């Protein structure tokens, strides 16, 4: 709990100062974006309104004070409370990231399962598939998926829509590379489990290869990957920047990207805070899963 608060605080602080350290005047963002031709008066007015004329440490303290009362500040560019901006964008991104996470897991399991059942050739093929999947850039994969499933086949919309069909392509775009990575991570432990004496016991008990996989190997394979859920979520957010752009999906990733580009400090820090919070929650869920699977972790 305390750890989580620390993480949130540190993330917000680092972001706050980092964005401020970046060249570019936030006041310009406030009055019409970088390169605005506004006069000194306009800039001064904007600075005063957002407290940018105060010393940095005072701005920081004010920001922290705001945080404590649940106020993430006001976006420079959007002129709306950050909580509102994020509140609008979060559900879409969460839906996307979680769908992709689940899909990625499912695909990874399929890959591992496939490799666990076959001989060496299929293992090599599996590895190739996994590495290939892990090395597919989101922007390329997404474009190809659009080309195939939207433009050519017309099965799915190319522009993301709020309904399920609109979610499929973006989620797949995120899930496939993730699956490749998870699959590779799982493979290692899956191999060890397959070669173990308890697997022999299970086989000697009459367990089928499939049963062996689902009842024994899977648990061992899932462990290292489960501990990665939080991190996977993080990469999904990074990936969301690209996927949301590609599929014209409203969401946090794009908000973040645009905010960094516009030096919109409150939105960047706010988004980081939310992502950090989501990370903490998902890691917690991943740890729970891990503990569920592996009682050895419970004691530590």
């Amino acid at each position, binding site marked *: 709990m305390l750890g989580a608060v620390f*993480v949130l605080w540190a993330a917000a602080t680092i972001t706050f100062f980092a964005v401020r350290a970046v060249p570019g005047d936030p006041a310009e963002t406030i009055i019409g974006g970088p390169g605005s031709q506004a006069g000194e008066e306009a800039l001064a007015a904007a600075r005063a309104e957002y407290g940018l004329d105060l010393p940095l440490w005072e701005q920081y303290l004010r920001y922290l004070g705001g945080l404590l009362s649940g106020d993430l500040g006001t976006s420079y560019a959007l002129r709306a409370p950050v909580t509102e901006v994020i509140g609008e964008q979060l559900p879409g991104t969460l839906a996307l990231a979680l769908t992709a996470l689940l899909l990625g897991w499912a695909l990874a399991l399929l890959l591992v399962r496939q490799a666990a059942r076959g001989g060496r050739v299929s293992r090599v093929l599996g590895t190739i598939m996994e590495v290939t999947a892990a090395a597919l*850039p989101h922007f390329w994969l997404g474009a190809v998926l659009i080309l195939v499933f939207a433009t050519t086949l017309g099965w799915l919309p190319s522009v993301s829509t709020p309904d399920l069909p609109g979610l499929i392509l973006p989620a797949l775009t995120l899930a496939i590379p993730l699956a490749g990575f998870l699959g590779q991570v799982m493979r290692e432990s899956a191999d060890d489990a397959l070669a173990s004496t308890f697997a022999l016991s299970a086989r000697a008990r009459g367990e089928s290869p499939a049963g062996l996989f689902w009842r024994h190997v899977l648990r061992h394979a899932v462990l290292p990957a489960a501990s*990665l859920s939080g991190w996977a979520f993080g990469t999904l957010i990074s990936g969301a920047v690209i996927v949301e752009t590609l599929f014209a999906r409203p969401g946090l990733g794009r908000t973040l990207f645009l905010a960094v580009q516009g030096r919109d400090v409150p939105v960047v820090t706010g988004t980081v805070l939310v992502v950090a919070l989501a990370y903490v929650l998902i890691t917690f869920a991943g740890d729970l899963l891990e503990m569920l699977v592996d009682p050895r972790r419970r004691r530590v």
Partner: protein
Amino acid sequence: MSDSHGQRSRPPEEAPEAPPADMRLPTGPNRATETGRDGALPAWRRMLRRIRLVELASAVILLLFVAAAVAPGLLAPGSPLAVNPVDAFQPPSWAHPFGTDESGRDVYTRVVHGARPSLLIGVAATAIGLVLALVLGAAAGLGPRWLDFTAGRVTEVFFAFPGILLALLLIALTGPSPVVATIAVGLSVAPGYARIIGGEFRRVRQAGYVEAAVLLGHGWWRRFTGHILPNALGSVFVLATLGLGQTIVWASALSFLGLGTPPPAAEWGAMLAAGRTYLEVAPWLTIAPGTAIVLAATAATLLGRSLEQRVRES
């Protein structure tokens, strides 16, 4: 210290005082093969026989890439930057095996010359990520409680940052360059690696053989380098070989956002990002560098895994 000494006295194939026949256990792995079907072959042929096709193929591919990185001019004598607008968007042909790009540059030449910067990004970013992760992971997985706690928090803060944000901030701070992209990508993959490595350390440190080393009075460092690291390294290895492809691709995502390796450098990620504009009119623009990335990563992974398996099974 005892290593040089150890090399000499290793496989006791011809032990001076062979144990009495009735004490002998089933013979070592080499012996039967020798007397068996391979018996007549010279040693090097026997070595070759054991090399698996996968290993061979992977090694050949990697060698090619390394050759391309070291001496690109040998494989592709032309200049990767030579534009020729008249020749733009040529599909693959004998003159241009991988076609030409939007400025009429030869894609084959660019892919070959791209090996060095791309592999450098891949290797360096992965190395940055891994080293950081090893430090964090070791602290978290092995250190005393307070260090575990601190490292754990640091990792988490790291994690909580979407990797792309780190990259964007860094680039905004210093301007885009391959070095910054490499560092940014390295930093953003580090937390994931740290997590895996930390978990692996935690698993290994509870192992019986680590206890055995404690019993021998070995200090932390010796236990770490002798047992914990090598045994945790399996997964690190996987990460490293995977990282090669992944980091190149992450860097290309920065190029997609217009923040990667500055044009017109022939770097695979940047080529991918630039070529995606013409996905439909000139698919070869992305297929060629994409295949290069995948091949390099796959070959590294397959070879690495295969070698690792050998070490484990020998």
